[in-house]
């Protein structure tokens, strides 16, 4: 039971990260203004 939930959590997290990666490399949204503001 514990193992099942742990694997499900990690897999889902990786899917979200992977999905975001694919999205950004495909559409390349411009995040520069925010990062500049944050790092300022």
């Amino acid at each position: 039971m514990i193992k099942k939930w742990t694997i499900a959590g990690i897999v889902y997290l990786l899917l979200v990260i992977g999905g975001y990666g694919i999205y950004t490399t495909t559409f390349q949204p411009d995040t520069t203004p925010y990062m500049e503001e944050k790092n300022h």
Partner: protein
Amino acid sequence: MSQSVKETTLQISGMTCAACAVRIEKGLKKLDGVEEANVNLALERSSIKFDPAVTNVSALENKVRDLGYEVVTEKSEFDISGMTCAACSTRVEKGLNKLEGISSANVNLALERATVEYNPSIISKTDIIKKVEALGYGAHLKQDESKQEAADHRQQEVERQTGKFIFSAILSLPLLWAMVGHFSFTAFIYVPDMFMNPWVQFALATPVQFVIGKQFYVGAYKALKNKSANMDVLVALGTSAAYFYSLYLSFASIGGNAHTVELYYETSAVLITLIILGKLFEARAKGRSSEAIKKLMGLQAKTAVIERDGLEQEVSLDEVIVGDIIHVKPGEKIPVDGIIVEGQSAIDESMLTGESVPVDKKFDDEVIGSTINKNGFIKIKATKVGKDTALAQIIKVVEEAQGSKAPIQRLADQISGIFVPIVVGIALITFLIWYFMVVPGDFAEALEKMIAVLVIACPCALGLATPTSIMAGSGRAAEFGILFKGGEHLEMTHRINSVILDKTGTVTNGKPVLTDVFPTDSFVEAEFLSLVGSAEKQSEHPLAEAIVAGIKEQGIELKDVQSFEAIPGFGIKATVEGKDLLVGTRKLMNKYEISISDSLEKMDTLEREGKTAMLVAVDGKFAGMVAVADTIKETSKAAVKRLKDMGLDVIMITGDNQQTAKSIAAQVGIDHVIAEVLPEGKADEVKKLQAEGKKVAMVGDGINDAPALAVADIGMAIGTGTDVAMEAADITLIRGDLNSIADAIFMSKKTIKNIKQNLFWALAYNSLGIPIAAVGFLAPWLAGAAMAFSSVSVVLNALRLQKVKL
């Protein structure tokens, strides 16, 4: 209560707080035919008294399910033999389905197997097997199942909650990481760009909200359906508000710069994670507080070697029936209660009586299940099996005590029942004040304060405060051989200020021995003793048994008795070989107008020595006297001193005369003696003390003291737990030692103190938390953590009772 009232226990799952327990109680009580319903949140168990003519167990179970909770049942498989056709399997199925406590029974003819779902607190596997056998077929528990330990549903619950916690923690941590970027003092921490994206946050928060948080929505729905509100309502309201508001902002940000929006996904996700963590700790702690029962159950042997059809075979304990001959090798546990039919051995009974010295047992002696056979091979005949064994009775008493409610808990239940609606009201007011007055127009800020109020106000700690302490306290007491019958007795015991001790069997060993024989000149000693012994043989009084044993030791033959009558408090009247015999007290002799003036001096001397002299008359004339003396328990003196040091008034009560009583009392240090009291008079003496405003505990061996035990504020029975004593008294002291009385009072004091601490902290926590949250000093996630912490701290405080040293 009418005679026809039945009592049943249901194991219930799905309760989250005291409000749930109250709701089930109310729902059950509304049913026709239900006289009393008690729900214990910590044990997840309900005990119900109902009239079987009006309602039945399935109706009760259905009601619980209607209210939105589950009734836990057990499933077992049985191998059925002797079925030849479909009609047979239908017959077995119908027969089983008719039994009370069985939810469903399915019989598969091809597999020769019956799958039965049943309520283990109503019906046992043995009962099911018996029913099948009564129908004319053979039944055995499926082989692999008989060896398999019953799966503990609590353990499964812990595992499920652990899994859920890990899952939601994995998804909440990135959200928490993103959140630190919002604070000015933690802005230096690097936050990956990805986690700031509202749609990534949405993707992470959604499963937590609806997969892990489903239990809160379901719980809230069930509660609202039944027109009440519980902690699930608070959690569902709080987290949904945060989640859906963030979702709205996410949509609103489409087209603009999504990263600059302040979102609250982490509030809902972290909150759910923390509440699950709290529940996980709670489930673990609850499991630990029922350890006492597990320990007791662990004492039981798992299998027994029985002799059937001339063959030795090992069977599971469930299959042993009364009358079976059981083989017990040295070092093995005796599986069930029985009597020795062959062999002799020393038996270690320490697990039940606390007495560490093994007891020698021989042919015809009783043995108790779960005690250990030390050194000899014995065969025993089973006399009590299953639910009737001494150990099963002890487990039942402890379970009932742990499941019962102390009066102090009713208050907590009432408070938590009305708490939730009030909190929702306060939360709404908080929102309105913030939105219109403090930060006009700032919806997010006002929402955040409202969520914090909703979350901090959850009354879980309040609901757990009393039952966890009662469980831990009574469980710990049971380990020392002190069985409280209910929470109310555990609460009452600490108020005791007077202790009445019965003499025989309580202060003394209750095993007197024959010490002196004085026949008059007209009798030869042997003849005199033969007459007395024959008459006393019929009596079950301990003094009579001592006389008979003493006479038998001298090799004197006993005669047949034509008639016998016991006159309680006076003595006996019997006819032996045509002679009319009276054996007993002065009062008996006076009653029959027998002159005893010559013997009074001798009698006084014996009584001054603490001996009990019994006068004997034959055919209306005084014939002599016999004296017996009881020995005082080694521990009695120290125990009485301990009670006195605790500031208690210690009184000894006995049917013996003043002199004997005073002599014994002086030896153990008791100043206050009530002597020459008839069995029914003991209850009156208790009432007299109560009339003086005293809280009285009566301690006795439970048989002749039963009325006094019942009348006293607290009745304590001394015994091994095998006799009627356990029924009559509020507390059973399994160890014969009087130190148990002080231990019981001490344990009660500790438990009540613990309950008060718990109630104080739970209430203080809620009442302090709400204003702090309303004023805005508490972030929602911090409120969630505090709430989880409060439940855990209450449970941990209760668990301290398990470490109490007596």
